[in-house]
């Protein structure tokens, strides 16, 4: 079959085209459903490197570790049948843009008329390979990871070390404390969540952890993991010269984008993700937008009008869903009918009994003001400001107000907000510095990354800081 051309053959594409989706998680599944919903009747192939059907990840660091849901019971609910050929347990290894062909790890190849890439991210492993292989050293990203960690936590280790207090690390520490396990958290920054929410809010998170009985060590890095003769993790060495005896260590140093398989494809793919336009079409390395390769989910980076049209990469559940729906729609629509993906970043976390939610891009904020509630009560709403406008907001147990702040962000409302609100306290009279660490330092933390205006992104790379 000849490739379906864009001019005049849209109907044929919709009727009998071949669409391949690489990445069978949240974004991939929602895109497949949207394609069928919008009337695509051609062949659909879903490629996933994990052997499992699409499953939901947020519960893995929460309900699963708390024994409330088994790790293999977080399968994503289906909105509708997708009638796809599933190639699960097989990773994609290469892409030939000219031939419109995806290569798979088992040697087979898939031809496509439209390709959607939703390969997401993976946990960044412990950089010392031998130490990473010790029995008792874990990462948490997949349901298999969660099953193994859950099993080990259920065996009642004497102490758990969490390396990195971003959202995943903090949620794991919270689950451990709820299970009555002793936990040490080692965080390079000045406080937990500091990369994502800044120092002011980080201090609140630190107080929550300490009150819950976490042995929290900030401004500290783990310099080495040490095993016994049998290869079991025994202790961790910290940059302050101290040593902690632990049986389990969970490495929570953020994520790496799954783009290596595209290294020589000619796509604009790099460590920060795959650049695409607001319509989810991928850029090639020359900065020219493709018309048959689309990107969605954690692996995508796209320009956002609210944030100076800088490319934005988001590891957010809602972004994966919204991006997938837009990408799927645009894949089978004429250019005049396409839609932009201009989702306002937002995410949530549950830890230490507190519901944390955020909208916008907090790390862009220079200043923060607590507009409702009180930091000390751990129930508050705070707005972040950048160049005199509201750029982000965060709530602790006050999520119902967040929509209002989203409107302020979307309207570029002035910062600090110049109006009274219900529940304004004395601490809410003046903004203070938001306390974000130097952005040039690599961090486990931010789930939102701004990465400049260039669609090609090959120069930025992550180098773990050695203590």
């Amino acid at each position, binding site marked *: 079959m000849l490739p379906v051309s864009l001019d005049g053959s849209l109907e044929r594409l919709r009727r009998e085209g071949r669409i391949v989706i690489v990445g069978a998680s949240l974004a991939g599944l929602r895109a497949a459903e949207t394609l069928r919903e919008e009337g695509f009747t051609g062949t659909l192939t879903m490629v996933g490197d994990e052997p499992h059907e699409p499953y939901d990840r947020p519960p893995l660091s929460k309900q699963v570790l708390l024994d409330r849901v088994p790790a293999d019971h977080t399968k994503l609910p289906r909105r509708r049948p997708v009638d796809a050929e599933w190639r699960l347990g097989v990773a994609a290894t290469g892409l030939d843009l000219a031939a419109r062909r995806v290569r798979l790890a088992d040697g087979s190849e898939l031809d496509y008329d439209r390709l959607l890439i939703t390969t997401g991210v993976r946990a960044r492993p412990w950089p010392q390979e031998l130490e990473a292989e010790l029995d008792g050293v874990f990462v948490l990203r997949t349901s298999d990871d969660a099953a193994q960690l859950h099993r080990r936590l259920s065996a009642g280790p004497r102490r758990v070390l969490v390396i990195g207090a971003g959202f995943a690390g903090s949620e794991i520490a919270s689950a451990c404390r709820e299970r009555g396990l002793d936990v040490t958290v080692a965080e390079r920054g000045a406080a937990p969540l500091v990369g994502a929410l800044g120092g002011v809010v980080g201090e609140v998170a630190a107080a929550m952890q300490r009150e819950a009985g976490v042995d929290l060590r900030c401004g500290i890095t783990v310099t080495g993991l040490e095993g016994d003769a049998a290869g079991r993790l025994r202790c961790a060495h910290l940059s302050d010269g101290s040593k902690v005896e632990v049986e389990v260590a969970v490495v929570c140093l953020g994520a790496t984008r799954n783009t290596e398989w595209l290294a020589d494809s000619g796509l604009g793919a790099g460590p920060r993700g795959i650049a695409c336009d607001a319509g989810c079409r991928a850029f090639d390395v020359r900065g020219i937008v493709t018309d048959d390769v689309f990107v969605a989910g954690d692996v995508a980076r796209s320009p956002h009008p609210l944030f100076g049209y800088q490319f934005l990469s988001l590891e957010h559940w809602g972004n994966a869903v919204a991006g997938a729906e837009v990408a799927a729609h645009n894949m089978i629509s004429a250019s005049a009918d396409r839609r932009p993906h201009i989702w306002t970043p937002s995410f949530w976390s549950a830890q230490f009994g507190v519901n944390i939610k955020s909208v916008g891009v907090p790390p862009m904020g220079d200043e923060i003001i607590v507009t409702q509630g009180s930091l000390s009560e751990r*129930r508050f*709403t705070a707005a972040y400001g950048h160049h005199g406008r509201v750029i982000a907001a965060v709530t602790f147990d006050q999520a119902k107000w967040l929509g*209002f702040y989203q409107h302020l962000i979307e309207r570029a409302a002035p910062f600090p907000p110049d*109006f*009274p*609100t*219900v*529940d304004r306290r004395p601490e809410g009279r003046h903004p203070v510095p938001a306390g974000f660490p130097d952005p040039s330092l690599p961090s486990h933390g931010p789930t939102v990354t701004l990465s400049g205006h260039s669609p090609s992104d090959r120069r930025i790379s992550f180098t773990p800081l050695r203590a």
Partner: protein
Amino acid sequence: MTSVALLRQITDYANRHDPYPLYAELRRTPVVQDETGPYLVSTYWEIHHLLHDPRLSSDLRNLNPEVARSIGHEEDPNLPPAFIRLDPPEHDRLRRLANRPFGPPHSPRRVYEMRGELDEIVAGLIDGFRDRGQIDLVDDFSYPFPVTVICRLLGIPREDETRFHAWADTIAASVDPVHGTDEEREARLQGVRQARTDLAAFLSDLIEERRRSPRDDMLSAMATSHGPDAEMSLVEMVTTSILLLIAGHETTVNLITNGMLTLLRNPDVLKRLRDDHDLVVPLVEELLRFEPPVQLLPQKTTLTDIDIAGTTIPKGAQVWLVLAAGNRDPQRFPNPDRFIPDRADNQHLGFSSGVHNCFGSPLARLEAQIALTELVRRIDNPRLVEDPPPYRQNAVLRGPRHLGIAFDGLRQ
């Protein structure tokens, strides 16, 4: 626009059976000041935004003093406002405390576990229709059902229920705006004050008794609660229980009655529900959109000037959010005037939204679902005796006063 008398027309009893054409008229100007003072908000997104706007207060002590005087708002020195008329942080604290014995996270199974009891009450009331060719759904079912439930949930002794009904009706009527002469207004306020005082005295005795010998009910739980928040004072427990009682008495009755009325006006939907009980879940949501038991929220004011939909609502103004108008906004809901029991994307305003969203909504939903399923399943060939039925006076808590239904018999 000629708001002339639009508000007056809405509160006019002559229009009670069908205010929706008036709401459509109102929506032509999303935010408009009525000639009598209040700002009326009638479009979906404007209402939705204001319900999440921290510049909007539910505490009428923030009204401009002149406005407060003109609408006859007064403070009751003995009974402070319940949480529905408070802002955070007081609202949040009291609502959390009230929620401890009612919903998640502390009591996630409370409503779920009432299902058996609700089934029994419903079965008993419907059994009472036997040997009758006609019932008044309101008096024979829609009123006694939720009232029995709220009294049992709180722990009100059965023998006192009748006195409660009288107090609850008087207080509920007071949410309506008062027109008429100063004397009429004063007489009505006097009656409401008396009812509140009597009900408060009764409840504080009961709470003291439950504190001494607690039972498995919400009054006992509130009286003996120990949590991270400062406990409720006796006065706070009294105002909170009055609030829950009134809400339990005066809202679900309309939801159930409006539900049967709507089903009897749409026989095809009634038949679908009889054949497919699962339809009741989205059907009740559509009902909350189509005929919301609380038509409008008249108890809001602004902490500062708010610009919305091209209008500036000044600080301290009285704001009315017309939920029932927003629920029929064609900008939000396609075919808004059609009752579509399995409507998709039905984020209605029937339970309001934001921090003041309906506290009892999980219970109200369950009550309406059980009631409508069973009424439809058991009553053979039900017919409306008159349409429209006679309505209650109340424009805010709107619903039929009687709903005559003729039928051929009862199924088991």
